[in-house]
């Protein structure tokens, strides 16, 4: 399993990458493996959420899983490439399989509410 060094991670198995005031969020390689084949992403654009809240869900063949944002803000973009190719989440979870972009209302949370690679790997027993 692959966990890029340039991302930070949550205990709910999302990853986060910060570009200015925008946080890009996806699910980890571990999470996509546990979920299995992803078939649909149900996250509304414009959703406003506080850190730790659910912003929507990812539906896989076997199960549906909530997606939690570690940062407060507004979902400004949902990855439209997943509409016709949801399996991209499985194939490329850190690249083309990203889920949403969030306009952060408190960017400091991006650091305080996520963990580094080593800590995340320890969490999942890798």
């Amino acid at each position, binding site marked *: 399993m692959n966990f890029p060094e340039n991302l930070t991670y949550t205990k709910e198995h999302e990853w986060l990458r910060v570009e200015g005031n925008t946080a890009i969020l996806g699910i980890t390689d571990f999470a996509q493996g546990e979920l299995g084949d992803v078939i649909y992403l149900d996250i509304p654009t414009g959703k406003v959420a506080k850190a730790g809240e659910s912003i929507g869900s990812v539906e896989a063949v*076997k199960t549906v899983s909530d997606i939690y944002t570690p940062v407060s803000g507004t979902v400004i973009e949902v990855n439209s490439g997943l509409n016709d190719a949801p399996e991209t989440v499985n194939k490329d979870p850190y690249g083309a399989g990203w889920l949403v972009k969030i306009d952060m209302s408190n960017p400091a949370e991006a650091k305080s509410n996520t963990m580094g690679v080593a800590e995340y790997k320890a969490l999942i027993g890798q």
Partner: protein
Amino acid sequence: MKRTPFFDKHVALGAKIVEFGGYEMPVQYPSGIIAEHKIVREGGVGVFDVSHMGEFDITGPDAQKFLQYISVNDVAALTPGKAQYSAMPLSSGGIIDDLLIYMLAPDHYMAVVNAGTQPKDWAHFTTQAANYNVTLRNDSDATALLAIQGAKSLQTMQKLTDVKLAEIPYYSFAQGKIAGVDAIISRTGYTGETGIEIYFTSEPAIASKVWDAIFEAGKEFGIAPIGLGARDTLRLEMGYCLYGNDIDETTNPLEAGLGWITKLNKATPCIAADALKNQKEIGIKRKLCGFIIEEKGAIARHGHLIIDSSGAKIGEVTSGNISPMTGKAIGLGYVPVALSTEGTEITIETRPGKRVIGKIVKPPFVAPHTK
């Protein structure tokens, strides 16, 4: 927790292992459920380890009479070499389990039951057998069962046996050798595709040899192992019931759309004959129906409520998933009889506050190729 003789094979193949029916079973392999599903549906061949299923051997002069009493289908319709889908009811009509009954010879049958229900099934068999001159043997642990399914299944398995597989009709079987090992070779399955199921010894070295021989024989067709995840999506596309999901002790065969196996006028009536005749007379109130959902991404799952316009529960989804072949969400659920006709729209609550429209359709959801 129990393991089948193929557990090490699954682990070596990278399977994700889950608990199912008291066994550690492969739910999927690294290629994933949808890819596995399509191998079986789109002209390939897949191998399912279903050794967790239970097998009971029934012999004796009362064998037929006994099975008539404990199962709803007409066992007298069987001849040696034929198998039959049936259900085992409580006297109230609720379903203890669904099962296959194989007639091996006069006065000799095999019943194949689900894994999770095997202990209670065996208890029921032994209790009911007290009044009959029959001998029962629980062969569940001693028996391996592999299902080889898909368009290339017969060609694959023909390399390993002298039995003419194409000459065995659907729901019939032969007793012969597969890779030199004694087996019951059955033209049955749970996928809706052409296929074979083979019952043979679970002795680890022999079982392993059979597994390896099958994968070698199917190599040229891209043979692949298939987990329980795709087994579930394949059976759902056919509208086949899954015990514990669609049928259980609170549902009777008439409601479950299993009237076609429920022979209320057979010469030796079953334990639930009075209850089921009465149910038929007064009419069922709810019916297990298939439905499809057109809205993209709205998937109904087991336990989701079917509601009326006021939001009150009027039924329940018992199975639901995406159909890997159509890309649409499909499912089975109990609805009031008035809403059970094809084309009727039902409202399903897929999560608190989220309602989607399902349309009643008659399964199968995808054309079968069993013959």
